[in-house]
């Protein structure tokens, strides 16, 4: 058995657990913000991990879509993470942190990216065409992935990005599975989709309800990190108060039930959101999707076997959520139908 395991390890393309997976099973990408977290998600079965690294100097204070607390804190830590991940055949994908690029950021960002790329990361995610030009000018030949900040919603957009040198495109979250299917069918590059956590209420690239500069310390409990989920007083066009409710909350959370459909759609990567979460939570989610994908890899794409696995995964998540915040996963997400890739959220408004 030991010998067989070694052979399998040698033939494994990637993967935290040493099994060769069928080609049609998407890669599972998990978020990481520390070495300890990286160890947990690699052990939980991620095929690839993705992370940002804190930019030293004044850019450390530019909080747009992320704060430095969601990023790996130093190049040394990045180096240790890469070492651990590569030892387990897991790829490390660097995110280029900022969704935009201005002239005055150039020197700091170039230095930072060069330093990160020296650490032998396997690919880089870019959300801005200016940053793409910097990466190209550095001359490192690793795959370049287009971030959701490119807001790719059709296959012509994917074509545009592939002409610029992107080899994988992460699609916008606000699509339906049919739309994803059409894009994947026509595309010659890898198509990746988000499957879990942080399914934004708005299109990422066009949302300026910036979480991290929201002056929340005055009154807001920590759970309310996202302004779009806050209650607003809603007045109609005649000035009549219609209610106080989280009217901008179109937040989705989960795609566990939809994994078989996404598989059929021809997606090649599943991405879990949560760079700002604890390593434990990142690992729990990674494990859940790993188990679902492994069940599908065994050919159990429908029927009782899949449903049983799904139920057992959700039961585990229920236990975890009850333990952590006193409410079950089903209550928080399933009952409210906070499902990824639905055209419109119709559940009742609920705050908190």
């Amino acid at each position, binding site marked *: 058995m030991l010998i067989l395991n070694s052979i399998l390890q040698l033939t494994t393309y990637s993967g935290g657990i040493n099994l060769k997976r069928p080609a049609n099973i998407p890669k599972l990408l998990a978020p990481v913000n520390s070495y300890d977290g990286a160890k947990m998600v690699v052990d939980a079965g991620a095929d690839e991990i993705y992370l940002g690294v804190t930019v030293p100097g*004044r850019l450390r*204070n*530019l909080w*747009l879509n992320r704060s430095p607390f969601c990023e790996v804190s130093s190049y040394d830590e990045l180096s240790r993470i890469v070492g651990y991940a590569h030892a387990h055949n897991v790829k490390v994908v660097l995110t280029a942190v900022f969704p*935009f*690029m*201005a002239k*005055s950021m150039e020197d700091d960002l170039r230095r930072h990216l060069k330093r990160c790329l020296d650490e032998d990361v396997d690919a880089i995610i870019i959300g*801005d*065409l*200016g940053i793409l*030009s910097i990466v190209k000018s550095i001359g490192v030949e690793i795959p370049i992935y287009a971030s959701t900040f*490119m*807001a*790719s*919603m*059709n*296959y*012509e*957009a994917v*074509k*545009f*990005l592939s002409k*610029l040198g992107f080899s994988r495109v992460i699609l916008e979250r*606000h*699509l339906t599975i049919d*739309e994803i299917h*059409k894009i994947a069918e026509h595309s010659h590059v890898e198509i990746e989709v988000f499957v879990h956590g942080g399914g934004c*209420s*708005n*299109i990422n690239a*066009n*949302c*300026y*309800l*910036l979480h991290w*500069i*929201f*002056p929340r*310390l*005055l*009154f*807001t409990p920590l759970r309310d990190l996202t302004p779009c989920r*806050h*209650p*607003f*007083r*809603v*007045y*109609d*066009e005649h000035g009549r108060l*219609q209610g106080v409710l989280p*009217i*901008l909350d*179109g937040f989705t959370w989960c795609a566990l039930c939809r994994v078989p459909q996404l598989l059929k759609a021809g997606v090649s990567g599943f991405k879990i959101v949560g760079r700002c979460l604890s390593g434990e939570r990142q690992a729990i989610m990674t494990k859940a999707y790993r188990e679902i994908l492994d069940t599908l890899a065994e050919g159990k794409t429908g029927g009782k076997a899949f449903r049983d696995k799904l139920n057992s995964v959700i039961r585990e998540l229920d236990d975890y959520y009850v333990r952590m915040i006193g409410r079950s996963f089903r209550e928080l997400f399933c009952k409210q139908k906070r499902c990824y890739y*639905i*055209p*419109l*959220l*119709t559940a009742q408004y609920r705050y908190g």
Partner: protein
Amino acid sequence: MVEESVKSHVDAVRFGSELCERKIPSLQTLKKAYNLIEDHDKEFIYVTPRLPDQALEKIREHVDFLSGREAKIVVNDLGLLNILSDQPGLNLWLGRFLVYLPARCPWRLGIKDMFFLTLSIKLMLDRRKVADLFYQTNLNYEPTVELFKQHGIIGVDLDWIPKCFQSYQALADCGLQLSIHLYMIPVALTRKCHTARFLGIRRLDRCDKPCYNRFFRIVHDKLGVEMFLSGNAVFRLEKPSPKDLEKLNSVESLELVIPINPITKTTSYKEINNVIRNLKPT
């Protein structure tokens, strides 16, 4: 709306939607609007939103109609840009949903307010070091502008945020023509329409577009920040002034875009003319 616009003193009329794929007009309506605008000697500008594949197919027909007519098209989707950059005889404009501009954030001034909220003066000082970046755009980097120009972009849509005018000037210096939208600054855009959900519309493919007439003023319950929900987009308002307009005097090619909608109470040609009159220096 088009009928009111052509009667006013504007030089050009924008037709189409920059917000919602469900508001893309039929080819027949587009032709009708084009003829009406041309008959009144106004420039025709076609505006397009972010597009999934099925909407992109619809726009292809429109492009075929417009391509021989030297029309200006505002592009808010990279896929559409990919198609149009190969088409001769079109003037392409980068829409504001392809321009990243952190100053759109409704609590952007929070950077200063943080002084009162944090115990760390150092943190506050550090944040000030990057405050200028909030007033720049993703186009304030030459390789980005060059890339868009290579794809046929000659102008760009921006918002009326006076603190950003200096960075807009830099774009004009790079050879881009500028169009600045008055009053309404987009804060968020969604495809899971917040208005439809609030009004109990269950299926977006059956949406009868109440947002043409209706809007909601929304006020953050504790912070007091005021925004406006119009269909699938959230805006904040910024009132233009002739004094601020003077700051853009040196921009050679400048266009001001007047929104026609119930939020700004500009729905008739008289109200449009009023906006124009109020912007003229006294």
